[in-house]
């Protein structure tokens, strides 16, 4: 029998890659190896409806348990990969199993950046949110009246803050940069979410550096800021970014540059080894790019599946993202990297607005808050490789719907 295609990493990318191989007619042996003990699941709800206990785990799985058997996918869960050997085309699982592969896909994802132990990062009561185990550990601690610190004012931290505040906790967000969302959004978007959280009673401290997390007997008691202020806390969520899981690839001698380097066909530097999702760095619009999103996990994985079966097309996505906080849905189309200008477009409903990012006069991204129409129009326009004049985007009276049809010329 032919050697299987082996997929290392059983997150949303790994599951999507397996599904696409089957959908495209690959009928050969197929193995999916994952470190976590559970079936592939959706991560975005972890910091939203899962940690708040509105959704149960069996609703997060991307495919029902029976599907893997039906699709003849050889699942190796709870299986860390100890070594990858491109020379003899094998992966060795911890525990001794060795899998030969005809082709290999790395969908190893990313892990949260943690605070170092020297400043209290390993105290009990300090959490990151990446896995279902993380969310399961946090959920019972979200109790009314308890004090939660959020270290880092990015989307994951803001989502956790919203859930905790909704549960009646006292929440303080500490952001070292001069404003929340500094790395990912323009000031008008940050202003919108700062106001939203303050309206809900969250304390947001910007330009505020942490000296250390304080503890007693190994357990978090609070934090000390650089200015000497002490804030007591029962719980801390650290949301300061993620790191690509590229160690296995690096140890195997593959080209790695803060992410597994792949080309437009999702090929790594080693023959017959592909990669997709959060773990990769790929060429996009002329620059090596990492995307941390479900959109990229799924789309790049599907692209990799097609490439493994011989398709010769470059991966060229229009990225999209979303976040849910309180009753606000944020939808992002495009990537604002390198924007030179942005305009705010007030929405048609109370509390709806969108921020349109331009590089010179070309639209590159939109953040839409409770404004699905702006998001939808921007997504369509970006996918068609077109733009919308800045002045029209800024004019809430201008009808942008004609841009939905490719025949529109402006």
């Amino acid at each position: 029998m032919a050697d299987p295609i082996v997929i290392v990493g059983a997150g949303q990318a790994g599951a999507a890659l397996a599904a696409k191989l089957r959908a495209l007619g690959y009928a050969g042996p197929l193995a999916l190896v994952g470190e976590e003990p559970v079936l592939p699941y959706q991560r975005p709800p972890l910091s939203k409806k899962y940690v708040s206990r509105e959704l149960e785990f069996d609703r997060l799985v991307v495919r029902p348990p029976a599907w893997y058997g039906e699709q003849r996918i050889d699942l190796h869960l709870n299986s860390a990969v100890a070594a990858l050997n491109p020379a003899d085309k094998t992966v060795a699982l911890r525990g001794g199993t060795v899998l030969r592969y005809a082709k290999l896909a790395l969908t190893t994802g990313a892990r949260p950046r943690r605070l170092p132990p020297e400043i209290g990062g390993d105290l009990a009561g300090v959490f990151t949110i990446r896995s279902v185990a993380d969310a399961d550990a946090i959920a019972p601690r979200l109790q009314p009246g308890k004090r939660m610190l959020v270290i880092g004012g990015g989307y994951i931290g803001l989502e956790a803050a919203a859930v905790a505040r909704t549960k009646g906790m006292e929440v303080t967000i500490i952001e070292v940069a001069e404003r929340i969302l500094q790395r990912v959004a323009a000031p008008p978007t940050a202003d919108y979410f700062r106001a939203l959280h303050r309206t809900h009673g969250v304390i947001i401290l910007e330009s505020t550096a942490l000296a250390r997390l304080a503890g007693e007997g190994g357990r978090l008691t609070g934090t000390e800021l650089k200015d000497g202020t002490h804030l007591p806390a029962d719980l801390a969520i650290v949301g300061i970014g993620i790191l690509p899981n590229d160690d296995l690839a690096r140890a195997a001698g593959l080209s790695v540059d803060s992410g597994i380097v792949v080309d437009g066909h999702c090929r790594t530097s080693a023959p017959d080894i592909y990669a997709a999702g959060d773990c990769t760095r790929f060429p996009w619009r002329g620059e090596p790019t990492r995307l941390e999103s479900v959109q990229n996990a799924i789309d790049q994985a599907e692209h990799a599946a097609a490439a493994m079966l011989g398709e010769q097309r470059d991966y060229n996505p229009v990225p999209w993202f979303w976040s849910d906080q309180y009753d606000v849905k944020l939808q992002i189309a495009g990537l604002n990297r390198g924007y030179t200008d942005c305009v705010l477009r007030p929405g048609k409903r109370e509390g709806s607005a969108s921020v349109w990012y331009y590089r010179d006069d070309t639209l590159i991204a939109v953040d839409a808050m409770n404004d699905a129409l702006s998001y939808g129009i921007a997504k369509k326009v970006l996918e068609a490789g077109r733009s919308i004049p800045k002045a029209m985007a800024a004019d809430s009276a201008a009808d942008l719907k004609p841009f939905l049809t490719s025949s529109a010329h402006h």
Partner: protein
Amino acid sequence: MPKVTWILHDGRSISAEVAAGHNLMEAAVANNVPDVIGECGGCLSCATCHVYVDAAWYEKAGGPGDMEGEMLEITTAERRPMSRLSCQIKASEDLDGIVLHVPHI
């Protein structure tokens, strides 16, 4: 449990019992209904779970909400009067027997 039937573009149909409270996008994915993708997991950001509710069921299922109506502007298949995003329809005893037509994408 409420029964849901999806009629595919080629005339084939798939029926399943769906737990009340589950949305019909997740039910479609769980039952391998082709062309219902649900890439965003039901958060109104991808419009890939677009269906046409059967005329006999549309009124009972109700029309789209504001945000859903806006997302229906960017569906891959054409929007029709019975268009809904199936992630926004929850299975219930009231909708026991509902029929959804799945556009080809």
